[in-house]
């Protein structure tokens, strides 16, 4: 069966073991995690986990059902109509042309967030596909380090 990519949001009770439950479920049943982000939902007892995964239609269906089965899970949202964003930080040598990097970052909804003696750090927040493009473009400027934040998503 064809593998499809899915962004799944899981609303869970904000308690210490819950991330282990979700991660353990993926590991134990052999599901892929492309990226995973977690943060508490403001003014509530819940957290929102955003998982990017891929698998056959049957596997994706199992993932959502198994996530739903976890006792601390309130809701699983598996939606094709999501606004997705991912943040990335890239460190460049200070010898590179700062204005070029600045221009590149702003093309992708970003900016220079640090320019010091040792290095320049750029930040971008954009759709995952565009983040890939940005990183491709960055390679010309000899990036020293790349830190990706994982996808966050919200329903349209």
């Amino acid at each position, binding site marked *: 069966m064809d593998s499809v990519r899915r962004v799944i949001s899981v609303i869970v*009770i904000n308690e210490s*073991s819950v991330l*282990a439950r979700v991660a*353990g479920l993926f590991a*134990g049943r052999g599901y892929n995690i492309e990226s995973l982000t977690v943060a508490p939902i403001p003014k509530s007892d819940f957290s929102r986990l955003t998982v990017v995964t891929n698998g056959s239609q*049957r596997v994706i*269906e*199992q993932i959502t059902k198994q996530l739903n089965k976890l*006792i601390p899970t*309130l809701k699983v949202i598996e939606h094709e109509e999501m606004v997705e964003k991912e943040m990335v930080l890239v460190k460049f040598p200070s010898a590179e042309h700062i204005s070029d990097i600045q221009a590149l970052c702003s093309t992708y909804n970003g900016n220079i967030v640090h320019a010091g003696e040792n290095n320049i750090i750029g930040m971008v927040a954009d759709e995952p596909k565009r983040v890939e493009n940005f990183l491709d473009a960055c390679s010309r400027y000899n990036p020293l380090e790349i830190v990706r934040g994982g996808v966050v998503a919200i329903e349209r």
Partner: protein
Amino acid sequence: MKMSGAQMVCEAIIAEGVTTVFGYPGGAIMNVYDAIYKQTGFEHILNRHEQASVHAADGYARATGKVGVAMVTSGPGFTNAVTGLATAYMDSIPMVVISGQVPLSLIGTDGFQEIDAVGISRPCTKHNYLVDKLEDLPRIMKEAFYIARSGRPGPVLVDVPKDITAEIGEFIYPTEVNMPTYKPNHKGNERQIKKAVDAIVAAKKPLLYIGGGVVLGNAGELVRKLANMAQIPTVETLMARGVMGHDNPLLLGMLGMHGNYSSNMAMSETDLVISLGARFDDRVTGKLSEFAKYAKIIHVDIDPANIGKLVDVDYPIVGDTAEVVAKMIELIEDSVDTSRYQAWRDILNRYNELHPLSYEDSDEVLKPQWVIERIGQTLGEQAIITSDVGQHQMWAAQFYPFDRPRQWINSGGLGTMGFGFPAAIGAKRGCPDKTVINITGDGSILMNMQELVTAAEYEIPVINVILNNHFLGMVRQWQTFFYEKRYSSTDLSFQPNFKMLAEACGGIGYDVTTKKEFDDALADAIKQNKVCFMNVAVNRLENVLPMVPAGGALYNMLLEHKEY
């Protein structure tokens, strides 16, 4: 009322109506054991191994339908309990296991007998808790029992640090649970049920496929009623033996790897599978692409994740089997034409005449199948049969004349050798009026044989019938069929003296080699009312047949195996 955390644990157990707790003490759980000493609300049975405690609680739960409770200490006490948790998890058995934990201040320091119990048990429990505040304890106990028995049942672990059980606090046991994230659906969608019933009425070759969920959901009687009313042929999984009753003409038998011919052929030729509380396990389906190839599928299950997991389903119905089947009966009553399936029933009856479930009896050597039939003739409906894992388990499932749900207790999902004896102890405690027989093998029985001491001490008269083939028989059978008879590590010629072993532990032993000796031993064992080992020498190289080789299609059964 003010009391210690340890007392709260006991009070919660009493409030839940549990009358027997199985367990084993140790440092981290000692406060609770002290509270057990001072209370009179339940009995505590000291097994001689934590694995046995958990299996005993499990057997108690399976036999009675109530939640089983086991209690263990931290570290090795807990790790010994893991096999028991996994066994119960795979078969969806309602159980609460309480484990001691090192004091909160020591957690994470590799303290003495510290192990991450919630971490280890996460994949083999329905849910688990580490109690880190005394004030949460009453609520957690309440939730643990509720989660264990509601929805798709399963084991729940409550890990309680030692300082929590020592602390004094206010105890008010909640009367209700309020869990916004856990609300199992019982009803079943009415429109879907209606559509499924329409499909049944329109089918030509419908087949009821009954699983353990029917037993767990106490839906046995309703399922019988549905089958009888609509005159639909029926197959049972290993976990559902007893639901239809062995002499119901609609029951074809057990299906799957060691299912009988007509059951497996029925599944291969049906045009409508009505799956009730079954989960399409690989030991049942054989090769998936050939399974029920010509059929539409109705799948009724309390767990949505079971539906569509392995096969595509045409009529998915999430709900409690009893509630859904009751609704089906209502709808089907006036619309079904039972003569419609007559031709189908005739075909299946002919299959059954062609290849009935059978074995070749002998006057020279005892046949294990004969022994099981004999127990059935002697005790029938009166007995609860537990089992271990191997050939003896399959023969028991095939040849015992089961008549009711909860009469047959075995580890189907995990296949845990060593389950049968402690489970029998739990079943007997839960159902003292029944004769409890563990049908076991010479390999399996040794895996929890220390329970002889438990059963002798507490006067729990479990009859262990050891079908002794001096082999790890089931593995040996695979070696015969698929490994050119290279009997690697399966020969159990070196044996303990089972009779003396039983006697040494305060039980009774019997050595049996003939039919007459078996009848005498069984009669005596029933009369003596004491735990016993019945060492029954059976034909060494007997094979379990029919057999669908692993991964093969259900209709490709080995029906006989002549050469040896």
